[in-house]
């Protein structure tokens, strides 16, 4: 019988509580969490319950079980909204969710949840010392959503699905109007639209070249000294040429 199993079997709640705290202080979060889990139902309504629940959430956090940690921090906040730890718990819920989000090219369902949770924290505790960090987290999370949308659009471009690329770049512009990637995206949209026009059947060429011109004009209005200016101009001029050819052929007929 190991020391830990003896403690688990100890009927005295207070002794188990002391042991759990000791495990926690010694950073043995796994054993501490087992004890806390066992203690929780027995301690509900007592003075120690608050501390146990808060530490229990931290045990998950320290074991990198971020989804569970987020859940328990939220439960803590909902139960003890007047506690001195309430603010920290709500921040930690958001931070745990942030920690649980994977890189941009995997499922981002958690990212949206994390953004909502952190925004909620900022709204409830605008004076908190964590607000600055929280804002930074939101920034990073938005960044990964931007990157995802950007990479998907670029993949359509690479696969030579130009129509899809133009639509996807358009969606990016609409969803992330203040992104730092926007300049590049707007340029790439011109490029994709130009390739779409160039490879179109004759009937659709005119309309599609016109769109290249339209996108170009919007682009130079917004970024008059863009690093992509020269290339964009090329597409514009080629489109003009294309349109002239179409006009010339039409007049021959």
């Amino acid at each position: 019988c190991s020391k830990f199993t003896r403690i688990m079997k100890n009927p005295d709640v207070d002794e188990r509580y002391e042991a759990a705290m000791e495990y926690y202080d010694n950073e043995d979060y796994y054993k501490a969490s087992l004890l806390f889990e066992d203690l929780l139902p027995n301690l509900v309504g007592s003075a120690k319950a608050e501390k146990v629940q808060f530490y229990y959430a931290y045990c998950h956090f320290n074991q990198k079980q971020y989804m569970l940690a987020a859940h328990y921090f939220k439960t803590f906040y909902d139960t003890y909204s007047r506690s001195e730890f309430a603010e920290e718990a709500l921040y930690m819920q958001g931070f745990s969710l942030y920690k649980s989000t994977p890189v941009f090219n995997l499922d981002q369902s958690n990212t949206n949840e994390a953004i909502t949770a952190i925004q909620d924290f900022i709204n409830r505790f605008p004076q908190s010392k964590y607000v600055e960090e929280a804002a930074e987290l939101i920034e990073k999370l938005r960044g990964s959503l931007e990157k995802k949308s950007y990479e998907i659009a670029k993949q359509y471009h690479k696969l030579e699905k130009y129509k899809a690329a133009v639509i996807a770049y358009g969606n990016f512009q609409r969803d992330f109007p203040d992104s730092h990637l926007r300049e590049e995206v707007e340029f790439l949209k011109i490029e994709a639209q130009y390739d779409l026009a160039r490879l179109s059947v004759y009937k659709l060429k005119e309309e599609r070249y016109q769109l290249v011109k339209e996108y170009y004009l919007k682009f130079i209005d917004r970024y008059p000294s863009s690093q992509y200016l020269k290339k964009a101009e090329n597409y514009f001029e080629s489109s003009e040429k294309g349109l002239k050819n179409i006009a010339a052929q039409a007049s021959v007929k």
Partner: protein
Amino acid sequence: QLGFQLNSGSSQDIDYGNPKEYKIADINVVGSQFNDKNSLISISGLKVGDKIRIPGDDISMAVRKLWKLGIVGDVKITVTKTEGNEVYLQIELTERPRLSRYFFNGVPKGQRETLSEKVNLIRGRIVTDALVKNARNAIINHYSSKGFKNCQVEITQEKDSLLANGVILHVNIDKKKKVKIHEIQFEGVTQVKEKKLRKKMKKTKEKHFTHLFTPSKFIDEEYRNDKKNIIEYYRSMGFRNATIVADSVYDHNGKMVNVKIKVDEGKKFYYRNITWTGNYKFNDEMLSRVLGVNRGDVYNPQELSKRLNFNPSGADVSSLYMDDGYLFFNVQPIEVLVEDDSIDIEMRMYEGEQATINKIIVNGNTKTSDHVIYRELRTIPGQKFSRTNLIRTQRELAALGYFDPETIEINPVPNFADGTVDIEYNVTERPSDQIELSGGWGGQFGFVGTLGLVFNNFSLRKITDLKAWRPLPAGDGQRLSLRLQANGRRFQTYSFSFTEPWLGGKRPNAFTVSLSRSIQRLIDYRTNRTNGSLKVTGITLGLGRRLKWPDDFFTMNNSVSFLMYNLDNFRTTGFGGYDNGRSYNITFNTTIARNSIDSPTFPRRGSQLSLSVSLTPPYSKFGGKEFGEPTEETKFKWVEYHKWMFDNSWFLPILDKLVLNARMHYGFIGKYTPSREIGPFERFILGGDGLSQNSFLLGTEIVGLRGYENNSILPFESNGTGGVAYGKYVLELRYGVSLNPAATIFVLSFLEAGNNWGSIDEFNPFVVKRSAGVGARVFMPAFGMLGVDWGYGFDNIPGNPSANGAQFHFTIGQQIR
């Protein structure tokens, strides 16, 4: 009882119509004996000094929070006193005993765990009558769903001496015997066969020794389903009004029950006129043709709905619209007139607008990178919505092997405002790596152990990121395989291969690198000394492409491989006196293949064609001392040949599950310089199951020919090294016994013929060894294809009198030739 009361006695008058703000001067808790007062106040969310409105939300929230803890029986908050704008509150509770432990008696340990999940008894909760009753019901339901209809449960309470205010629950269960069905009787069944009805009852069966896989059990829910199945069957036969008018289940002999079902069949109905309204895009005639239901056909609403909405085995009306962007299309068949036994149907259609795809969203890929998934999707932004493409995409996603095919979900999310639709794919990752650990009898080597690892979703890109190693970096859809095979010192082989299915990310061009090394040692068992060895080291680079021309079933695969043989006092057949030195085999291979079969395990139609050419450099044409005039020593230094392989297989459906398969295979090996001999490498050996391995030094091509012994058909003069030209023809008639993807089984009969020649001049495709026989194949995903054949060889093999005649063959895996 839950509630709060604000007028305590007559001293405090609260005006409910006019809420007022108070400051809390004091909070008192009464009735708590075991719970801590301060922590209860803390949980309530009320605090001395806070301003609250009375009446208002704060008080009701406080009650709700305390109640939610599940530890008090009754909560009440009262105002004891008000002084100016100060208020004195009192929380009144009644405490109830709390559940500290529970035990299940009368059932084995394994079932206790299942029950714990079912009953939802949470320790620390107050024990109420409802809690006990719910637990009891959950257990009874659980057992009655398993056929224990008479299960009895009794729950007793005991005070816990270890925990103040705690209660222990003892759950005593008596399952009793399983209830079986003695007899099922039908009444009023005249127009269909009773036997059919019994068959339609999937889970409710009479006790009978033939019902091995569906033992007789009486389960209420299944019985209800089976009654529905009976009615559904009647409906599908045109009995629109069939109903079960009465049914009873009564005791037979204490252990078994009898079931009696009384049916009112009603009349059989037929279609009369079918009319269409609301259709603008397609005319009535076109729609009726797709529907394929004619005047006078038996009325079958189920089939009608299939033909209208979704028909897995043919055309349906919806797909006409759904594949052309009409996402909002719907059609309602309305019975407008029922006259005698005829029914007139009006198809009320709504065509709606065409929708264009805007965004594609993939959720649930916790391992596989976006780009690996997006490149396989058949729905792309800018396309018209198409149901067929959606289904095709689902298939492509399943074919990747990274996701659970059962849980792939597709949700079109329409945006009515701009006529677009977003498509959401929800996937769940599943393990796609394979580990092979096996030991087997490997022919001449005796026991051979194998360790194989295949990672189907590897990521080379993330290899430097240590955090991504779980256990290997994953998610980029690359394939990495490692394989070790060994039998101590005598025989070892290591191989490694890496495949990137989309080299460059733009087109599905599969790039493969593979490395291999094999060592074979000749060991004298008495002295345990190594007398000789052969080491073979090889590398192959390959690039496979899907072609668009002549059609998109074509693929082309080019590869270059380099093999180095290192012989050290290694005597083997076909090399004369050559047993020391190095040989090099450099080949360039091109394979053009076309594959259009409809299923990999039991194809019914389509064909497989493949032409492969392997070339080594023509050293003999180079001349000089090195290549031009080989001596006995240098004869095998530079391996030289050209090899042509042709395989062709056709599948023709004869009846639904009866398929004819015709195959034809040829192979030739040639030399560049007529005066030279053809070397011993890469030759052909025919006969038997086609499985057995031969010397990997020679790379011999083993081709099966049923009805003859393994490796028995080869030119006599080749000294065991094999022929240089072979031909083989197969006619196979296959019948699918079970086409369930979990276990596909088919039986076959075959006629086979083939031969193997020592030189191109002797080659005569009509002089062949013939055989005929029967066999069976079983395909299970975990084991692959397993098969057994019995064949009879009609022709004698010169020099090997026992090679033909009746032969049994076992096969593993699917064989091309």
